[in-house]
């Protein structure tokens, strides 16, 4: 831990921050909640909850259509939120940000629109062994429909991507590389800028699944250079049911619409429909206005705290937990990539993760157990699943100590 990070952490008033997340004050099984399932979804600060209540209390109306006061106010707030997302990701234009229901829908949008127009029989799509089902299944479906082939880049023993294999697999048949920024199961941070550079040298389009990344690190889509970047609001302290897709303007403009309906059209006759411009071309139907506004507020909230501070705090928690885990010879950490986000997947001796998770829950501690929607990865590691503790900046060392107590109890009961 360098001095800069120590200072960064010292500047964070954890008690104050925790008090801003009302759910952290509740108890579970008569014990104070310890929430270590942040990779599944993060908790929401009061400002986000207030924004949702305020929207439905004072602003609710349909956007982009009405000339009336409320509609204009709601439209302004909705578009301001888009601008906040643009700024957060450092996209060039706000119309490069398309609202979706979340990361999964964003990937499906690319598969359904770009994929159906650009993938043909004999083409290849390259993914990695680290992918979440959301970044596997849409491509499988597309490959099946088109007679294309899905290829999987393997990982090394420590859970990092086999970059030598990746380089070899980027053949002339590959049309798209779809890779996760951070593995939700192992925490591995992939070198997405490098991967994008390698793919672009061969004219291959790149999609990054950013579901896990936005909450942990500064993401700059222009610096990465990728063509698509998919993300979810609820994993960045925002509401569920809202997310987005960043797409480079040139790529998005060349794509056919994804779904038909209102909002995505400029004019409709029974003979011919003229599609709307970006981003509305891809936003058919009434959008999720309230949650989009809440998403923007969440990004403001973490920007105010500072992503550097958050990253430093989370690294400190990860280092502490890793050190505690390594002190227990029965614990096996799954995934030891040098670049890792603040989550630990582990197994306790031969204890089934589900048994362990059930007992850990009795301590009021929320961890995730199972395959984490990465079944192929678990199969390749030859394990039935893992226990995953994923940390956010509002977690504490004391909470990690409680997890260690729960793990001791698990060992006592099952071994």
């Amino acid at each position, binding site marked *: 831990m360098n001095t800069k990070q120590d200072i960064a952490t010292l500047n964070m008033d954890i008690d104050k921050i925790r008090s801003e997340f009302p759910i952290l004050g509740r108890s579970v099984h008569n014990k104070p909640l310890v929430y270590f399932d942040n990779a599944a979804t993060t908790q929401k600060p009061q400002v986000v909850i207030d924004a949702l209540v305020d929207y439905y209390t004072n602003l609710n109306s349909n956007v982009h259509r009405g000339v009336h006061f409320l509609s204009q106010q709601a439209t302004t707030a909705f578009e301001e939120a888009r601008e906040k997302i643009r700024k957060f990701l450092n996209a060039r234009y706000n119309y490069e940000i398309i609202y979706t229901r979340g990361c999964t829908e964003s990937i499906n949008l690319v598969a359904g629109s770009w994929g159906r127009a650009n993938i043909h029989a004999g083409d290849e799509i390259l993914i990695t062994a680290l992918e979440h089902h959301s970044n596997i299944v849409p491509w499988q479906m597309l490959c099946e429909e088109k007679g294309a082939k899905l290829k999987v880049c393997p990982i090394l023993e420590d859970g990092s991507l086999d970059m030598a294999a990746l380089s070899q697999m980027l053949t002339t048949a590959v049309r798209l590389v779809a890779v996760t920024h951070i593995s939700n199961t192992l925490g591995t941070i992939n070198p997405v800028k490098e991967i994008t550079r390698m793919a672009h040298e061969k004219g291959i389009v790149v999609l990054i699944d950013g579901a896990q990344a936005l909450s942990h690190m500064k993401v700059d889509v222009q610096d990465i250079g990728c063509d698509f970047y998919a993300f979810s609001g609820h994993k960045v302290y925002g509401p569920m049911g809202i997310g987005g897709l960043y797409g480079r303007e040139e790529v998005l403009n060349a794509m056919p619409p994804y779904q038909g309906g209102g909002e995505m059209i400029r004019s409709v006759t029974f003979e011919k429909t003229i599609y709307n411009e970006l981003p509305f071309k891809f936003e058919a139907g009434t959008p999720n206005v309230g949650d989009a506004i809440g998403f923007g507020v969440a990004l403001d909230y973490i920007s105010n705290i500072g992503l550097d501070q958050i990253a430093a705090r989370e690294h400190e928690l990860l280092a502490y937990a890793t050190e505690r885990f390594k002190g227990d010879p029965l614990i096996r950490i799954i995934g030891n990539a040098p670049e890792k986000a603040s989550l630990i997947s582990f197994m306790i001796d031969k204890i089934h993760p*589900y*048994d362990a998770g*059930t007992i850990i*829950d009795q301590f009021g501690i929320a961890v995730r157990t199972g395959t984490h929607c990465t079944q192929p990865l678990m199969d390749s590691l030859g394990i*039935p699943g893992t226990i995953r503790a994923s940390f956010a900046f509002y977690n504490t060392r004391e909470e990690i100590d409680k997890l260690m107590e729960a793990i001791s109890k698990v060992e006592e009961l*099952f071994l």
Partner: protein
Amino acid sequence: MIKIEESTSAIVSEFDIFDDWMDKYNYLIELGKSLPLIDEKFKVESNLIEGCQSRVWLHAEFDGTNIHFTADSDAVITKGIANLLIRAYSGHTPQEILDSSTEFLNEIGLTQHLSPTRSNGLLSMIKQVKMYALAYKTKQAMG
């Protein structure tokens, strides 16, 4: 042979002794560890039960009058639950099993206390027990 209701009310009283859930789990774990071994040849895909985070195999044999269940799981707590179900239902006629209530699981607090995925696994196991009963009853009726 004791009736299903007698077994299930005995199970409920056993669980009543424990005040907190950690003790109940401890008991379930003991039951899991003491679950009679299933014949390895029955741990096949067709005996796997869907809807559980851990893998559960349930095998049924019908002797013409009663159904006999054996089970296994890779998770101990699940084995404990399987043990309870076997104790309640194994060695009974298809009709008895079909007529029996699953209320005892609510009384223990199992259905409320276990997480939904686990709970679904439990419900899937019960569903499978009842499916076997229905299948063997049909087989009986057809001679």
